[in-house]
């Protein structure tokens, strides 16, 4: 009865002149009802308020406070009606215009913009508020949420500013907890979550965050307690499970994210966020059809959500992709690229699977699905729902995604090492039940790259030894921050290399079995330090000391050089050496390049001393010396395409065809669509009798030959004949000749193939 009278009052009387405090109480009460799923009452109230607003000429004479109430009512209606969201924004903007000294309207407008995924405009509003009120906790919180939404690394700092502005502001404490949870800082996340709950114990996301901390820490009792509390507050706590699902996904536990999101949408079938998280993570575990259906449900409820929109658009594109299957892999790529990518990556992935299965004594379930995207933006959408992600590849477990060659500048990355890296994650994630910390998983993936082929994976850099020299490397117990909260792209690169060195040291000192034990320990729920202790018998402090000592020994030369000159490892020597080479003073160039190289002998960047030294020595006619320098580059820099081609040319000139082939093989992973490299490899392979090698390259060339496929397939048939496979040659030639019956070269080869099949020689 009371509810009816309030609704009637609001429906029949303008808000102006009534107590703003009364409305504030009411709107907060209704919003809580809404969150708890009691939507009928909240919607009735919201419709009454917005009806009054409309009858009052869009609140033409209402106070700013009443306009904000109207905006909040429209916001509630906006869950079903995109048009209502615009009305809400108009009401908030009107409130701001009504009272230009108050910030409340701007804050609500900003929150609404952010809720609808417009972070740039929301940021502008929050900053406008802070210009008036520099200690506004809500504004700082808004900036922090926007930063978290945009994946920026300053979310925690901004949340801390909000807490500093108002330590009793529960939402800020809870966001801080979530940011710390994402950084896998479980203890501090728990503290913040508990603080938030102590300030406002009625928030489902508060209990959800606390439960997520407990769940990720394997604290079963604490999880159940939080879950029970959430259910006491709301018998259908969808928001609680949405928070859990989100946390699970952010910790790469995609199957669990599906489970929690499924619980959430069961409790509240209108919860767009639940459907969205469910759909995105179903796609990550390879349930493509279910994922699409869930996302369509989410999109129907929330058409503003750009992640869902982008992902649905991407799924439309995927319908035109082709799948190439090998024994244990599904390689999914745009139809134009699928055959070629299947041809080059299929054998590599099969080799990688066998190698990694032996290393980790573990066989992930198959098929493993690898999706390749010709537009980096599409890969980015597949990974994070948005464009702009910098990574080359991602592993969701048994679903991998990465760039195809067309997505990136040729020569700027290595497609082979990237695929190997992502597949290594499949093993480390699987063996650890998706609980391996990011630093361990990344470190091992880089180690596996380095083991796979010479040159692959991250190698020592000037930035790394400089950080080592300055004592700026993160200790092992904080190494995860280099991935989850890097201070910039530079620190992320350092973290990859450093993590790989820690992994390398662990295997060197304790064996591969220790790595397996480590991963299984995570699966059993051990935290990082406990797992390391279990696997190695050493505390993290001891491992830090051991690591530091090993690094100082390993990088003694560059560290000594840096001790002499803090400013730059190579000083001006490289520049002077380059000038000498350009000026024709080869002897001086060689001398200076050698001097620079000796400061950091293993530094293999193509633009470093060894690259320059190779050029100078070639100019001096010293091919042996040049080869040594080139090898340092090609064996340390996985994107040194030109250096590999140069090395191949030098080997070929010295009649060392095997070495030339190896260099060209490295170059082909860097410039996979370069037909000259593959053509050269095919010819050299045939020349030394490696006919299967020649066939592999001819097969890749045939898949690449989009303007003259018949010639390329005839080349393949010729290679097949040389490899004593007349049956496959005949099949290829019949296809070619069906399209071009007069093709004389193919005709002659067909007659030869048939003669060979009939036991004869050339016809």
């Amino acid at each position: 009865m009371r509810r009816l009278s309030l609704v009637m009052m609001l429906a029949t009387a303008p808000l102006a002149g009534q107590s703003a405090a009364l409305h504030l109480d009411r709107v907060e009460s209704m919003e809580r009802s809404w969150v708890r799923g009691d939507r009928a009452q909240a919607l009735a109230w919201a419709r009454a308020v917005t009806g009054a607003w409309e009858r009052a000429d869009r609140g033409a004479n209402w106070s700013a406070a009443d306009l904000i109430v109207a905006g909040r009512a429209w916001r509630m209606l906006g869950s079903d009606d995109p048009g209502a969201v615009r009305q809400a924004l108009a009401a908030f903007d009107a409130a701001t215009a009504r009272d230009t000294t108050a910030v409340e309207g701007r804050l609500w407008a900003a929150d609404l913009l952010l809720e609808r995924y417009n972070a740039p405009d929301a940021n502008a509003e929050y900053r406008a508020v802070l210009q008036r009120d520099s200690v506004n906790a809500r504004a700082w919180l808004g900036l922090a949420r926007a930063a978290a939404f945009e994946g920026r690394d300053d979310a925690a700092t901004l949340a801390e500013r909000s807490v500093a502005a108002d330590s009793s502001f529960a939402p800020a404490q809870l966001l801080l907890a979530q940011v710390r949870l994402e950084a896998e800082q479980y203890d501090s996340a728990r503290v913040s979550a508990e603080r938030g709950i102590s300030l406002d114990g009625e928030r489902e996301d508060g209990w959800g965050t606390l439960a997520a901390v407990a769940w990720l820490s394997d604290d079963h009792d604490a999880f159940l307690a939080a879950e029970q509390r959430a259910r006491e507050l709301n018998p259908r706590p969808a928001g609680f499970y949405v928070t859990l699902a989100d946390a699970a996904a952010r910790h790469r536990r995609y199957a669990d994210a599906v489970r929690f999101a499924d619980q959430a949408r069961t409790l509240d079938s209108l919860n767009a966020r639940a459907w969205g998280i469910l759909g995105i993570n179903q796609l990550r575990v390879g349930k493509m059809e279910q994922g699409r259906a869930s996302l369509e449900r989410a999109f129907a409820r929330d058409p503003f959500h750009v992640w869902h929109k982008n992902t649905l658009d991407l799924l439309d594109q995927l319908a035109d992709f082709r799948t190439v299957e090998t024994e244990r892999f599904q390689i999914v790529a745009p139809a134009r690229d699928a055959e070629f990518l299947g041809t080059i990556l299929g054998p590599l992935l099969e080799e990688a699977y066998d190698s990694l299965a032996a290393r980790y004594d573990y066989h992930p379930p198959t098929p493993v699905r690898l999706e390749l995207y010709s537009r980096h933006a599409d890969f980015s959408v597949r990974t994070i729902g948005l464009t702009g992600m910098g990574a080359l590849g991602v592993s969701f477990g048994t679903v991998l995604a990465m760039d195809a060659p067309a997505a990136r500048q040729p020569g700027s990355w290595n497609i082979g090492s990237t695929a190997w890296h992502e597949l290594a994650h499949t093993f480390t994630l699987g063996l650890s039940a998706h609980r391996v910390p990011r630093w361990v998983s990344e470190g091992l993936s880089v180690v596996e790259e380095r083991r796979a082929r010479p040159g692959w994976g991250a190698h020592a850099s000037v930035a790394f030894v400089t950080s080592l020299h300055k004592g700026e490397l993160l200790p092992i117990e904080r190494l995860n921050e280099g991935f989850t909260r890097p201070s910039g792209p530079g620190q992320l690169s350092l973290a990859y290399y450093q993590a790989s060195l820690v992994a390398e040291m662990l295997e060197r000192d304790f064996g591969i079995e220790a790595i397996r034990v480590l991963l299984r320990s995570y699966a059993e729920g051990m935290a990082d330090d406990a797992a390391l202790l279990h696997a190695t018998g050493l505390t993290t402090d001891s491992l830090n000391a051991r690591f530091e000592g090993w690094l100082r020994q390993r990088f003694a030369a560059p560290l000594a050089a840096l001790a002499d000159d803090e400013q730059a490892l190579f000083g001006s020597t490289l520049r002077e050496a380059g000038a000498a080479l350009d000026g024709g003073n080869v002897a001086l160039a060689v001398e200076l390049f050698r001097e620079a190289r000796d400061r950091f002998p293993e530094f293999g960047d193509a633009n470093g001393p060894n690259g320059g030294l190779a050029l100078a020595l070639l100019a001096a006619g010293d091919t042996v010396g040049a080869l040594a320098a080139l090898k340092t580059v090609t064996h340390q820099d996985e994107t040194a395409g030109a250096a590999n081609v140069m090395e191949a040319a030098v080997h070929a000139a010295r009649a060392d065809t095997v070495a030339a082939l190896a260099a060209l093989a490295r170059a082909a992973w860097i410039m996979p669509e370069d037909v000259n490299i593959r053509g050269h490899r095919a010819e050299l392979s045939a020349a030394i009798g490696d006919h299967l090698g020649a066939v592999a390259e001819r097969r890749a060339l045939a898949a690449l030959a989009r303007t003259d496929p018949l010639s390329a397939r005839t080349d393949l048939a010729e290679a097949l004949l040389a490899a004593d496979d007349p049956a496959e040659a005949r099949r290829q030639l019949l296809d070619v000749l069906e399209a071009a019956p007069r093709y004389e070269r193919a005709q002659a080869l067909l007659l030869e193939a048939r003669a060979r099949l009939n036991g004869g020689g050339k016809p």
Partner: protein
Amino acid sequence: MNNSLNLLAAIVLISTTPPVLTAQGGIHLLVVSGLSGEESFASTFETTAGTLIDVARDRWKLPEGSVIWLGERCVDAPPTVSAIATRETIASAFDTLAARSQPGDVVMVVLVGHGSGEGEGTRLSIAGPDPVVADYQRWLAGLFGRTVVFVNTASASGDVLPILSGPDRVVITSTRSATERNATIFAQHFVHGIASDEADANKDGTLTLLEAYDYARRAVDEAYTSAGRLLTEHAQLDDNGDREGTADVTLPLARDGQLAARLVLGTQSAPTDPRVTALLAQRRDLESAVEALRLRRDAMSAADYADEMERLLVAIAEHTRDIRALEQAGGGKP
């Protein structure tokens, strides 16, 4: 028999079946490469134009007077530029070709360089005043009775097509409108396809203008796609005189392409040995049988189709082998 009589013209008009008709006369080529603006373009333009000139002289065996290259600058190494490209030298070249050619001949004009303008004002940048479309229209009028192939590979060349379209003319532009102003790559692929024979799509040893155009169009598309770039040049061809270009001339019911399909780029020779003539006729019958078999594919089992196709293809291959054997024994080609 006089061998020279058996050597067909470098570009001959042929019918689709049978494939070769005797040329009515000679072939003449004018290549104009315009201002480059920077060294990288200069190199590209010269290489492209020079390669086409080389092909015309060395492979098509065109007489010296029928090949004219007007360029941005004199090139020391052969092939040499006949003169600097100016409005006057181009006009003079057209006069020369008009005087030298006969009705029934083929005159091929290829423009390479940077284009600009729109509509009637479309132009290729050369030294001095640039000729506009009306100039080319006037100069081409002097070639009445000849089959004209006009290939404008410059940027912003698209508007030329409806203006120069006409009977007995093939007009190719590298862009579909004047708004596609970025530097184009059509010319490189067009010439590469011709020079390398990669454009010979059906691998029958004869390259038609249609094949060269289609190869270049696909190669351009491929180059942009591989580089992850938006396609900013859309080539088109008109050869039915309706002033409307067609991009993909391979599509069923494409309005253009019939004349271009009959223009063969390269030399053809006729057999002198009646045994070779007979084998060629039998081979054509087998090729027709392949065509017929393709049409019956849906009515056959896959195995029967494959068996019959292999039988025919092997028979064709054996005929070719026998033809070549006779030729090598001295009874075949002149």
